[in-house]
């Protein structure tokens, strides 16, 4: 209930490896899965970045 993120640095960094693998003759389903995954990871990274920005706390 209280956790804020469940994607952490290492697997996110591994997304690049997965994308490279997907570009090497994998099936369409696999490629779509990995692209969706990359999109989700990028979205989560954007949220994480926003949490880094200064904001007044109340």
């Amino acid at each position, binding site marked *: 209930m209280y956790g804020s993120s469940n*994607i952490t*640095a290492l*697997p996110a960094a591994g997304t690049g490896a997965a994308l490279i693998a997907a570009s090497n003759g994998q099936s369409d389903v696999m490629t779509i899965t990995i692209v969706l995954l990359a999109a989700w990871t990028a979205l989560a*990274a954007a949220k994480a970045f926003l949490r*880094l920005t200064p904001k007044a706390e109340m």
Partner: protein
Amino acid sequence: MFHDDMTSTKGNGIGQSGNHHPLSLLQKREAVVGSSSDIAQRVLAFIPAHNEQELLPDAIRSILTQTVSATSICVISDNSTDRTMEIANSWGSRVHSVETVGNRHMKAGALNQVLSHLEDDDETVVLVMDADSRITPSFIESALNALASPKVGAVGGIFVGDGQNGLLGAVQGLEYVRYAREIGRSRAKARVLTGTATVTRLGVLREIAAARTAGRLPGHGIYNYDALTEDFCLTLAIKSLGYLCVSPKECLVVTETMADIPSLWRQRVRWQRGAIQALHSYGVSRITIPYALRQIETGVGILAVTVLWTLTIWSLLVGQFAFHPAWLCIGAIFQLERIVSGWRADMKGRVIAATMLGDMAYDLFIGFVYVWVWIQSLFRTRMVWGNITIDAARQKESH
């Protein structure tokens, strides 16, 4: 709902009253403790306690040392077999004590037995605080300031870990620090009114009970004793009635962290299952949708991280693994966020945040809890841990 004979009182003379119920007398004893500010509201503090002889004195002391005093303090001993009552009675006239009678509904039942006896009064607010917690000195004053707005129905504490229990305690403390930061950044809006310490208007509690009796809100009683997580249910109830729930940054409450993995597992399974139960009982509404979306986001996140790990390992096995600069940067954003958001933790917490592995292990644990509870919920199994049912587990944790 509850009758006078369901609650017995002991000690400090309040049990010997003649024409009035002892708790109504307690409500009127504002001059005993008095208020050190101009704030007119009366603050009745209640500490439900089940075998809390060790930590109860610290909890009481933290209320007695507030910048704005509580009008009265009442320890509600629920089926205690240790010296809880004796300790509560040892504070003289400053602290009252009550014992529940025939309560089978744990903390919620204990609170309902007492709160249902309080007289209606628009100026009264109720502080309910766990016996294993301690509030910071300006807690009540800050809560009253927040409650000065009629839109605010309740003020929940922001909990911090007690710094005990080694690495496991530190990682929980780190989680609490991050949660507090998120609350602060969301303009103090409380996601959950923590059971560890919450101040609520008595009138709002009355509204909840009336709405439940009329069928406008799910559950029974002021504190819903059917709920696995009565604090989350209270939050949904108050928000459903149109009030705001806030957690100002000054309202800190120091609470125990779980000492071992099985205890932590039980606690988190109960929280997660309680959240699903409450959302299900409240149905789809503008209040529940944000919580439901959070559940979905967590689920997708867990699925994503599982697939990420699988693909990363797979790419290693087939010899196609290579670091890609752009994704390394994205990984760095996650890691930086973990460090920055956990910076207010103690040194152990900072080290855990900086070294990455502790966070990953903890996220994995929370992910297991989430998946386990959803599987249980979908198959409608009764919550059991080892030989302990959820009721027994809740009894151990919630007081």
